């Protein structure tokens, strides 16, 4: 014989199931619409947090030179003068001009940096080295190649040289990390000279990380050059 309370519990459960069945489609609709609203990528969100040039008090419209790609298609850069409400603080100023580079020129063919990339941070060390930390898209979305990667680095360095004279060297990080190359070609383990009087970026060697090893007389050098990754040296 079924107890009376069993009937009550069974009834309550039945009501709950029916109520859930009625409510479920409405809940699903609400979740779907919420998902659409939050479909922005992390990159987009970051870029919204870091506007190209947000005018604020203390900023005046200033003429700046942006180095974008030339129409020649040969990897060279062309300075384009534009007006921006530029901050006086060199760090803010550097962020503004790099974000403007990322936003890109009117002609998309002259773009030097991938539109998906975002500048996550920029700071200047006491020795004048500017550290630019980009999102992963900087490495994954840039057209792969020596010329295209070199053009990207040059455009940042030359724009900083023109508009932020306090920056003397440039170090590029990807998502806070030092990486071997930008996209398989250009060496990012070193710093780039921002003062480009000679026209081409020259990376300055970082302090050697090699472990000192006993000297080998040059006139008795081994005939075969051998790699010793452990000591990070080439033995001659």
């Amino acid at each position, binding site marked *: 014989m079924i107890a009376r309370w069993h009937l009550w519990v069974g009834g309550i459960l039945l009501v709950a199931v029916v109520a859930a069945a009625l409510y479920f489609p409405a809940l699903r609709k609400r979740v779907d619409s919420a998902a659409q609203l939050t479909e922005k990528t992390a990159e987009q969100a970051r870029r919204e947090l870091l506007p190209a040039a947000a005018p604020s008090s203390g900023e005046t419209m200033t003429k700046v030179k942006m180095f974008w790609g030339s129409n020649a*298609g*040969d*990897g060279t850069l062309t300075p384009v003068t534009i007006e921006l409400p530029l901050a006086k603080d060199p760090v803010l100023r550097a962020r503004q001009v790099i974000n403007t580079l990322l936003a890109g020129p009117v002609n998309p063919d002259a773009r030097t940096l991938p539109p998906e990339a975002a500048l996550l941070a920029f700071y200047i060390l006491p020795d004048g080295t500017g550290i630019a930390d980009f999102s992963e898209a900087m490495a994954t979305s840039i*057209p*792969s*190649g*020596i*010329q*295209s990667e*070199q*053009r990207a680095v040059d455009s940042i360095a030359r724009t900083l040289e023109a508009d932020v004279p306090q920056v003397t060297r440039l170090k590029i990080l990807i998502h806070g990390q030092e990486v*071997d*190359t930008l996209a*398989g*070609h*250009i*060496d990012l*383990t*070193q710093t*780039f000279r921002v003062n480009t009087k000679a026209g*081409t*970026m*020259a*990376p*300055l*060697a970082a302090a*050697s*990380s*090699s472990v*000192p*090893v*006993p*000297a*080998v*007389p*040059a*006139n*008795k*050098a081994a*005939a*075969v*050059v*051998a*790699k*010793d*990754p452990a*000591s*990070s*040296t*080439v*033995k*001659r």
Partner: protein
Amino acid sequence: MPAPHPVGLNIVVLDPAHGGTDLGARGTEGIHESDVVLQFTAAIRRALEAQGLQVLTTRDGNENPSFDDRSARANAQRGAIFITLHIGSTGLAGTARVYVVPEIPPSTADMTGLIPWDRAQGPFQELSRKLGDSVQVEFAKRFKGSPSTVQVAPVRQLRTTAAPAIAVEISSVSVAERAELDRMIPGVAESIARGVVAFRPTYVIPSFPTPAGVGQP
């Protein structure tokens, strides 16, 4: 400073870039840099061997050796030169460029006769530039729009190579059809072979200063 060792060019190490899961530059027509450079390498190898030169490659199939492993292939030889081959994503279609690394400042370790691995290219930069100019001149003759002189860029692969080393980049994977790149293969191979042959007499392995009191017999 001791006199340079008069050792000539013995071996050419060809490095088809990328490979494995690293496809390199990718074109809209399904062109993959890692694939195309193998074809260029095969033709360049034949052109160099026809000139009596010995050729080694860093890969022959779809492997992807590390930067250091590729450099080690040349660093293990005496009298080698190193040529890394790339197909870019940009640049005027049908052109070819040669790159060498910017100046690498000498370190105190160089005085010991041991070169730090991460700046192995340092003592060879002048030779690299000569080799680069020799090849670039040939490219300029054959491929209209190519620069007449060698370009400078901090190409990662070159920095750890203890030999005259250049990077060659062909434009580009963005051509309308693969045949456009294929048509460049004989000209690129011939240009590199001619450039290497022109460079050959100037190749003398640089010597390194010996610290006082060290290594004297």
